[in-house]
Every structure is written in C-alpha cells, then in structure tokens.
C-alpha cells in the first residue's frame, strides 16, 4: 500500500542545495562536537542560514538537515513548548509545516485546509485560512487514511494537492486561490496525498491509488498557470512513460521496448498502479529528478505475471520534459506491496576510494540501497532489519532475489513474511546529517500472514486481491529509529520503540535528531550516539514530519504536527475493529493496543529553548 505521499518539495529560490560537495559552511557553522563528528566535506547539503523551512524535506536533496545549531546536545534537554495550534481536523497528520518569511503554512488532512500562521505575533495567530473543499466522496478511495504530506512553495505561492486529485496554487500572502487543476478522477480511485516539488518553474505531483487500479503517473504543472506541462505514466507504452533516446537504465532487466506493456498480462497495465505518493528529490547539477513508483495492482502477484514495469522502482527524469534517464526496479513483479516510493536522499560521498554522486534509498523491501545517481547502478543493498521475504539483491543483475517459500500463492496462507506489506520502512522520511554522515531512519519491524486472492477490477473500488494480518517481527518491538552508516553499511545505533516509528526524522547541525512516536512522545536524541536528550508527550500519536526554523525573534524553533492516523494509526483515527485481523488491510491487528495509548488529535506543537 503506498503511503501518504510526501513529496520532496523543492524550493528553487531558497535552496541552493547539492552544491557539489562543498558543505564547508554547514560544517563550520555546526561547529560542535559529538563523539562521532566528521567533516562533511563532500556532501550535498542544504545551504543557507536555515532560518526558513521552505520545502517539506528541507532541501531538494531530501536531507531534512538544518544548519541551525542553537539547539544542541548540551541544551536540548531544556526544550519547552513555545506555542501550539489546533488544526481542527482529527485525522492522521503527516504534513510538514513550511516556514517562509515569518509565516508558517500548515496543511491538514482531508478537508485539506491550509492555514497561514503569523510567526511575528505572539502565539502565531492565523493570518488567513484557505479551504479548497475537496469532494467528500474522495475519502472513500483514499487507501490509508485521508492524509496530506505537505505543501510546496515557490515564488510567493503555496502549491499542494487535495485528496480529490486536484493541485491548487494559493497566494502565500493573501490565501487567494490562483489556480486549481483537476488531475485525476476519484471514480477511478485517483487521489493525491503527496507533497509536490517545484523544480524550474514546474510543480511535480503524483497520484495515489495503487490499491484501486489506477494507472500511476507523475505530472509536471506549469507553476504559473497550472497547465499540465508533461505527464509520465508508469505503465504502458514507452511514449506514455516518456521513455526516449535518453533512457539508459543500468540493468538489462530494465532495458527493452514497451516493457510497460509487455511485462504485464494483456491490458492489465491500464489498471496496474505505480503511483507516486512519496517524496521527489532533485539534483540541479545533473538536472535530474528522482522519485519512486508505487506498487503494482492488484496485490496478488499471481494475477500479473511479468516484471510489471515501471512499478516499484526508482526513476530519474529530466524535469524539463519529463524524459526518463534511468530506472531501477527495486521489486520486479512485486510480491508484497513493497512499493518503490520511499524517498531518495542525494548525497555525495567517497565510495570505495572515489567521490561519487549517490542516492540513498531505504527501501520498503528492507534493503538500504546505495545507488550511483548518475547511472542507476546499485552499489550496495543491505538489509537494515529482519528480511526473510528475499535472499538479497544480486548486484550483478540488480535483481531482488525472492525467497520462494515466502512467495504468495493464491488461496493459501503464507505465514511469517518479513517485512510485512508496509515494508521495513514506509513513507516516513529519513534524514541525513552531512556532519555525521549518518542516515536517520524511522522504520518498523512487522511481519505478516498473507493470502493472495482473486481480484476484481471494478473502477472506484479497491483492487487488492489479498488478505493479510500483520504483527510485530522478531525482537518484540514494532518500531525503531536508528542511524545508518552507509559507508560502513551498518547501524551506528538504534532505538527500539514499541510502535512503528511512523513520523519523519529531522537532524540539525546541533547534532540533535528529532522524531515522534505513535504514543505521542516527541523525542530529541543525540545524533551521534542515540542517547535520548529530551521528550515531550503531545496530545496524540505523532506521524508527522518535524521541521526546524529560526523565528523572527532569532530563536531556533522545532515544530511537529501531532495527530495519529495514517495506515498504521487508522485503528485510532478510523475506529477500526481489531477483532477482524484484516482490518485496515491487516495493520489493525498489529496495532490492537494502540487505542490504549493514544486518541485522535490534530495539533501543531512548536518548541524552543527557554
């Protein structure tokens, strides 16, 4: 199931990003020490002062790293609540607020209200409110709660997607709607939940609905007019996928003509899924965007023999015309809803003795991919948790090696498949500290029993073909927050959590990493050691994305939306009944004790040092 897409929103004006490995400024400003500090001399990082948070991922490279260091490992324990704001919506809050020019922009789950909060005033009163009034019926075709993963900003405009598959542009100053483009049809199960990325005057947005048999696409809209500039489908003929002469996939398995048609049973590509609901990253040097495609539909793999291109993989495209440059399929013929949508974090690192432009992709299938982002070559793919559904990734062919005894069989329950359908890591975005050269990965530890079933495509209704129930994996914990060292290819440290860590991560130059838990704790940990520095209990479970900014008063603030929901939290936000262990596509059974730990909510919390 793909999860609320968050899209790495790029803000071209503010973010210089990826300046080919000169992160010296950041390193210098970070100063300070941790027992593991390194100089991030070759890493692409966010630049600038870090005063604003202009895109959900902080920068085009998707690092979620802030150069602010006022809050550091020494003083984080003194963090305190500065102010809070109720969104008025009690569903899963997965969005990241944006902070631009003294204003914070917060988008809520359906009904997708956009608030502009005035940070220059005490208590941040509402400057304006924009209500797009999306179709209520869209709630019925949103697979995993009615979330929204955040807005994007460019040129004085806020862009975001509404659940009923529209993209809107709103004047950041006044809250006036500038344009509104309908991109999909809820009667075909098309919804939009991801956060757009603005690159070179184009708003990049993707569709959700892999559980409804949509035909997934990424669309570029003209930021000025809202007109569709190009649309790349993820199934079907090469022309539709925008595959042309420039397309040079690294591996043979991704090479060929019209694979988006021939790797499917006849006509099944028309309902084959492969949406885009995760984050998009952009490398201005190579002038390429990177994003993952979602799972193929239906879930039952027996019904779709073939590799099911171009689902469950990573695309590199030219943002100007959408032309595909390379593609790598993380899960060919996906067996378990292991989408490829997880964010790709662009870093420059020395790799086996030479500097390389890399892409870190903590895969849903449990493998931490290190990919050469210029070519699409997989340099490493290591399991970052307990995986028994695959035996590894063949680096020669690039192919995931499935474990036959765990392959779904129609009409038969296959037990103890790890990781479960939500994967080792779902949408929750990781953060990269160029100072420490560590990737901070919120993720989960779930396994499942799974039975593949007949699936009937009836447009506008779910197209699944599977029953599953999830439960905690080996170890007795269901979630984990850890720091992965991509060079050593191992965990630097991990923190086990009772529930899946469904919130995004944030790391700062103060070497403090932030994340939230589904019980509602918002935590700050020492990024170098994993030592907990501070925690605060919010009103509801946290599944949002922490951000940090320097307020008009010059202080560093950290903000997080609290409000449980999403796929994992639907048992609370949608009152599921776990007596049926397939409730919430099987997630409710793994979370049956969550209602004892948290209730619905929808509140923004902002913290600062006293």
């Amino acid at each position, binding site marked *: 199931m793909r999860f609320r897409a968050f899209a790495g929103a790029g803000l071209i004006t503010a973010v210089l990003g990826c300046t080919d490995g000169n992160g010296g400024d950041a390193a210098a400003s970070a100063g300070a020490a941790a027992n593991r500090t390194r100089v991030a001399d070759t890493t692409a990082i966010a630049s600038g002062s870090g005063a604003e948070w202009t895109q959900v991922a902080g920068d085009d490279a998707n690092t979620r790293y802030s150069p602010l260091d006022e809050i550091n490992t020494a003083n984080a324990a003194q963090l305190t609540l500065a102010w809070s704001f109720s969104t008025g919506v009690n569903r899963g809050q997965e969005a990241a607020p944006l902070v631009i020019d003294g204003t914070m922009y917060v988008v809520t789950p359906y009904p997708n209200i956009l608030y502009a909060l005035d940070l220059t005033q005490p208590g941040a009163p509402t400057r304006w409110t924009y209500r797009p009034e999306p179709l209520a019926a869209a709630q019925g075709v949103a697979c995993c709660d009615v979330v929204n993963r955040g807005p994007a900003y460019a040129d004085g405009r806020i862009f975001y997607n509404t659940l009923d598959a529209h993209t809107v542009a709103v004047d950041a100053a006044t809250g006036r709607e500038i344009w509104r483009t309908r991109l999909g049809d809820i009667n*075909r199960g098309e919804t939009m939940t991801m956060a757009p990325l603005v690159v070179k005057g184009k708003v990049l947005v993707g569709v959700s609905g892999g559980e409804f*048999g949509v035909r997934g696409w990424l669309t570029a809209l003209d930021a000025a007019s809202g007109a569709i500039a190009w649309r790349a489908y993820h199934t079907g003929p090469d022309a539709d996928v925008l595959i042309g002469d420039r397309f040079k996939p690294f591996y043979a398995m991704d090479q060929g003509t019209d694979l988006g*048609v*021939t*790797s*499917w*049973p*006849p*006509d099944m590509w028309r*309902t084959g899924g492969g949406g885009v609901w995760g984050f998009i990253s952009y490398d201005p040097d190579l002038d390429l965007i990177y994003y993952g495609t979602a799972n193929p539909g239906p879930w039952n793999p027996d019904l*779709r*023999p*073939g590799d099911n291109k171009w689902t469950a993989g990573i695309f590199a495209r030219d943002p100007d015309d959408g032309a595909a440059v390379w593609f790598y399929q993380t899960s060919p013929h996906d067996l378990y809803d292991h989408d490829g949508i997880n964010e790709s974090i662009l870093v420059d690192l020395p790799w086996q003795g030479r500097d390389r432009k890399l892409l870190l992709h903590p895969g849903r299938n449990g493998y931490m991919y290190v990919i050469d982002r210029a070519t699409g070559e997989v340099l490493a793919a290591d399991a970052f948790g307990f995986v028994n559904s695959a035996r590894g990734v063949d680096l020669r062919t690039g192919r995931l090696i499935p474990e036959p005894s765990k392959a779904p069989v*129609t*009409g*038969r329950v296959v037990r103890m498949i790890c990781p479960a359908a939500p994967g080792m890591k779902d949408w929750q975005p990781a953060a990269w500290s160029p100072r420490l050269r560590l990737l901070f990965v919120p993720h989960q530890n779930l396994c499942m029993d799974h039975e593949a079933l*007949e*699936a*009937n*495509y*009836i*447009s506008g209704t779910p197209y699944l073909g599977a029953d599953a129930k999830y439960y905690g994996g080996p170890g007795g914990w269901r979630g984990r927050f850890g720091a992965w060292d991509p060079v050593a290819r191992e965990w630097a440290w991990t923190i086990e959590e009772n529930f899946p860590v469904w919130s995004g991560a944030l790391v700062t130059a103060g070497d403090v990493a932030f994340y939230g838990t589904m019980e509602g704790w918002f935590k700050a940990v020492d990024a170098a050691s994993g030592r907990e520095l501070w925690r605060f209990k919010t009103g509801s479970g946290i599944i949002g994305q922490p951000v940090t900014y320097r307020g008009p008063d010059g202080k560093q603030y950290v903000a997080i939306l609290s409000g449980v929901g999403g796929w994992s939290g639907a048992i609370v936000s949608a009152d599921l009944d776990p007596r049926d262990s397939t409730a919430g596509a099987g997630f409710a059974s793994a979370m049956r004790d969550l209602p004892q730990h948290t209730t619905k909510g929808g509140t923004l919390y902002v913290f600062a040092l006293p």
Partner: protein
Amino acid sequence: MTRFVLALQWSGRHSALDPAGPQAARIDSLWQFLWIVSAVVLAAVVAALLYASLHRRRHAEPEQAGAGTRTVVIGAVGLTVVILLVFLGLNFGTGRALTIPPDGAVQVRITGKQWWWEVTYPGNPPSYQVTTANELHVPVGEPVVVELGSSDVIHSFWPPDLVGKRDLIPGETASIWFQADRAGEYRAQCAEYCGHQHAKMALLIVAESRDSFDRWLARQRDSARTPADSLARRGQEVFLASSCVMCHTIRGTPAGSRIGPDLTHLASRRTIAAGTLPNTRGHLAGWILDPQRIKPGSRMPANPLAAGDLEALLAYLETLQ
C-alpha cells in the same frame, strides 16, 4: 459389440470409445481387452452356473466332493489369477504411456469455477497471455499439457474423446496432457459433483490446424475495440452502465472483474453458459434476461433490461469477435 451399440446410438456423438487422440485410443484398446475377457468370463460363469443347476435336477441325493471338483475349482481360481496378472501388466503399460508428458507441448491453464471454466494460455512475454472461458482451442496432432486448478470446490476435467479425467482440487495443482489427432469439436463436462449447476458445466474443445490455432490465439490477444456502429456503441454504454461490469471483463474497456467469464471475445465463442446453449442472439438475450431459468442457481443474476437497451447490448456483444 459396444462399438456396434454406440454406432447405433450416437453416430457423431462423443464417446470414450470413439477416441480422437492417442490417450483415449490407448484406454480404448485396454477396454477392448477388458470387455472381451469379461464377456468370456461372464459367459463361462453363467454357463457353469446354469449347467450346475440343471444337470442333476432328477437326482435325489447330493454328491460327495471328489478330487476332480477340487481340481476344477483350483484351476478356475488359478485362471482368475492369470487373467488378473495379464490385466495388471497391460494396465501398467497403458498407465506409463499416459502419464509421461512429451516435450514441447502447448501449455494451458484451466481454472474450475462454479459453474464454468476459465481457460488461460500463458504468454511469453506476459502480454501474450490469452484468457477465455468454456472453450479450449488446441492444435491438431500436438500434445497439450493442461494445468488444472480450482478457485472454489472440486471439479473434474473430462474430454472423453481425448483422455480420461483429472480433478481440479482447491489448494492443489494437477496436470494432464492429451493430443487431438482429428480436427473437430469435442465436449468436456465437469465430472465431479460441484453443486447446483454441476450438470451444466461443459467445456468445448476445438481442435484445429496449427495455422488456424495460431490465428485464433493472435486474435484472442487483441483488446476489444470501441465499435463503430452507433447501436453497438450504445450497447457498450449499456454494458458499462449496468450490472455487467460488476462481474465481467472486456479488455479495452473499464470492465475488469473476474467473477464471470472474460467477454473480450465473446462473439468468437461457440457456446454460452458453459456449453449449455449455442451462442446465438436469441439464446444470448434469454440468458442475459433470465439466466436462472436456464441454469437455476447460477451466479449470474437476472437483468431486466429495457427492450432497446437489450437490443443495443446484443449488438455490442456481437462485435466482440
């Protein structure tokens, strides 16, 4: 003798004793042996019995058993054993010949459903896969391996002219192979009791030359086109706007449900309702309006369409060649 009876009864009908393929032929020759031996044995027993009963009617006292009687009885038992050994030998020979599938066979997958057959020809690449229902096309003179599965209860695949039967058991995969040496149409019927409409669950096997088989296969790969004719186009609207879409697939349209047979090439099929009715306009109309009259208990509900809609729908379905 049986041939004679059969010839009398059903010339041109289907029969396990009128084999059209090597398997059925082998079983048929085994049968020839079996029935001749059986007839002789039966005749001998009846003759012995009648003679035994009648030859001493006039006598008053039973006879003591002599060594002769014992020898005859032991001899008869011995003969029985010999016949059985010959039978076992022939049987195992036949069995071996039937079970080993030859290489390079046409591969087909059949899934039994209450109460119809889904027929799938796997494709390489997968987009060459062909899915149809209740009709299996095979090239003449080539072995065909059929992989059998069920999605609900147990069914059994049985084309008597070609080969014996094999059960389709949920949770298991079975396979059987056969070869049709004569072009023609052969009827197969479900041979394991499977519920209300076990009686009307037949499959038509069309054996044709390699050329026409290939042509058929290629045609089946096509998606349905939006019809040019306005009545048929309206029929397509009727199809998509009514309950049809809840259960059926027509590739090339948004209809993609697999509860009922794939209708993408309905008009190319010779029968409807799992071999129950010839595929004519009238029968199709009757079937659409009230399938429960034709197959009570069938999973297809009645569709009380207005006359104009029905006419349009039929026109559309007829374009699905």
